[in-house]
């Protein structure tokens, strides 16, 4: 039984192919303006990776901001449900999931059966999500991938009070003019996101174990900021999938559940 989970996110479209519970492959492409085409491309890449024909796929479940555009999917689920299913498979002991993607930050509280008990999503503001880090990387003229490592070299906590990306950018520019080291500014950016996500997590209620997923979880500087802010150790998935693939993995598992009778 082969199923596919697709997570059509604001920045990347991720695909997981699952056969009898085992991950066969994953694939990721940039989400373009034509969302269905992005999904098609990601699915075709994944199928090509493992030499499977499309008609061998029994069920496709889509999730993510653009899920409704994937008209070839059999079903859709929200990122909340997909995350819950995916993380429960990787870390059954997790009761709180923090998902920081490109566009949104989410906190999900689970019960012992992996059922969603409560959740929070950041309101209309990008300052608690990955897009914020990208905007700041541009302002600082630093590669996004180097942000994590650089922030760990910071020697001083610099407060950053702005509540939105637009104002934060001007605050970063002011810090640059004050000759603040880039490492400290980058840490301030990570701390600012962590502050916002932590506030949301406290509103939803934090229960151990706590997992961090989403593309921003690959940023070791942000993980450090979150750990300090939250006061909990964070489980970051590595195997069988990396953090940004958890929702697609969850969607593929839900597709499998569906075929197994729900």
């Amino acid at each position, binding site marked *: 039984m082969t199923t596919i989970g697709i997570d059509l996110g604001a920045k990347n479209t991720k695909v997981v192919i699952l056969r009898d519970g085992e991950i066969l492959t994953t694939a990721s492409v940039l989400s373009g303006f034509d969302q269905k085409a992005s999904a098609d491309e990601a699915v075709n890449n994944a199928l090509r990776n493992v030499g499977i024909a499309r008609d061998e796929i029994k069920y496709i479940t889509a999730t993510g*901001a653009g899920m409704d555009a994937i008209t070839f999917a059999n079903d859709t*689920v*929200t*990122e*909340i*449900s997909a995350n819950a299913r995916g993380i429960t498979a990787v870390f059954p002991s997790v009761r709180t999931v923090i998902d920081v993607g490109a566009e949104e930050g989410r906190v999900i509280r689970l019960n012992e059966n992996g*059922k*969603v*008990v*409560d*959740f929070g*999503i950041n*309101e*209309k503001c990008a300052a608690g999500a990955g897009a914020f880090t990208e905007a700041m990387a541009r302002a600082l003229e630093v590669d996004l991938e180097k942000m994590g490592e650089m922030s760990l070299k910071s020697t001083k906590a610099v407060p950053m009070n702005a509540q939105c990306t637009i104002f934060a950018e001007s605050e970063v520019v002011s810090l640059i003019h004050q000759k603040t080291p880039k490492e400290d500014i980058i840490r301030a950016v990570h701390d600012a996101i962590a502050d916002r996500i932590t506030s949301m997590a406290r*509103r939803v209620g934090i229960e151990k174990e706590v997992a961090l997923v989403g593309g921003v979880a690959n940023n070791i500087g942000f993980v450090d900021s979150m750990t300090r802010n939250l006061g909990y150790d964070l489980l970051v998935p590595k195997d069988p999938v990396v953090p940004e693939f958890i929702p697609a993995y969850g969607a593929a598992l839900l597709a499998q559940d569906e075929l197994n009778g729900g």
Partner: protein
Amino acid sequence: MSTTKYPSERLKSWGKAKTLRENYYRDFAEAHDKGGIRWAGGAWSFDAIPAGLGEDVWCLTGEPYGATVAFNKELALECQEAIETKGFARDLCSYMRNYWGSIILNKYAWPQYSEEFPKPDFMWQDHICCSHAKWYQVASDLEGGIPTFSIDVSVGPYEELTESRLNYIVGQMHDGIKWLEKTTSRDYNDELLIKAVQNEFRTCHYWAAICELNKTIPAPLDEKSMYALYVLGTLRKSSQWTADYYEKELYPEIKDRVKRGIAAVENEQCRIMTDTQPPWAFLKVFRYLEKYGCVSIGSLYTFSLIGLWEDKEDGTWGPRSIPEIEITNRDEALRALAEWNLSKPEWQHFYHPKLKSEMMIRIAREWKLDGVLLHFNRGCEGLSLGIAENRLAIQKAGFPVMPFEGNMGDEREFDLTRTMARIDAFMESLGMKKLVD
């Protein structure tokens, strides 16, 4: 695939409600043409008292007017920009800003009755939330100075009501009548006051009785429809037309729907309530919920902004009984009116969020709810005060809660797409699937 579980049909008395509402705004606009008096004040003001000035006295209540403006996105934005330009902050009550904007622009939300904002002859208000009395003080200034009277009703929760607290309000009411006579140069008619008080008893009782019928599965009414019905009580609760409509038309019709098993949402499989005023420009949220077979049976807000409630002998929450008293004079009428209004559930939580949580949990249990949607309404500090505490209490009582941020009257603070995405996640967490696309 048909998802219909229950029969459904349109409300027969819907058209009448619409006509009554239109007549209300027309009558206010045309009051002077008929030689009558216009007054403005809040939906919670003691409107039975100015009724004693004569039968040619018409009012404009500010909150429903602010909501009417909000429903018209273009006009709302115009009003908000006008008042911001005048120097007023964006985080003030959004109904109030819409109302003030209307004055500054001199535009009435019902241009078919008057292009210009009809200037009231006096303001008659009470003061329960932080914005109420200030609203009309500023409105008076913006209109160039209009006589204004406000009654302070902040005497504490009803369960702690004492004779001296009641006297404090009744005393202000007596002063108010003298002020009305002086301001309008009219003699006051106590018979009209007594009649208005009795009408108000009926309005508040029957609206609650209508809401109580929503305990039935399937619910005969959905909250989106209730908004168009409860509003009559907020326009003029002491009028004969409101009381008669609720008692003689709407209540019998809803009772009949219950008897025949008529549902508001024909695929009802999930029941929720909301809280506070909705984002008026985005009532489509309720239609979106229906895709999941989800009906909002109402809220503490829709039930008791006007409806009055009490504990029944069987332990349930039901409509407060109409007082079986004979009112023979002005003082008795004012005393009964004050005591009646002080029991209003929506006034209680200005004193402590615990009081609101208790009532909300009671609704969640008695109306057999699956979950609760809380509008963290940035447009109304009064009704949103303590809502985060309400959320925790409701969750503790075992009901899933989905908060969403927005603003009842300022669409700039509401994100429809994300709210619907949030609803998707909440419905999934309740185990619901979309029944229709």
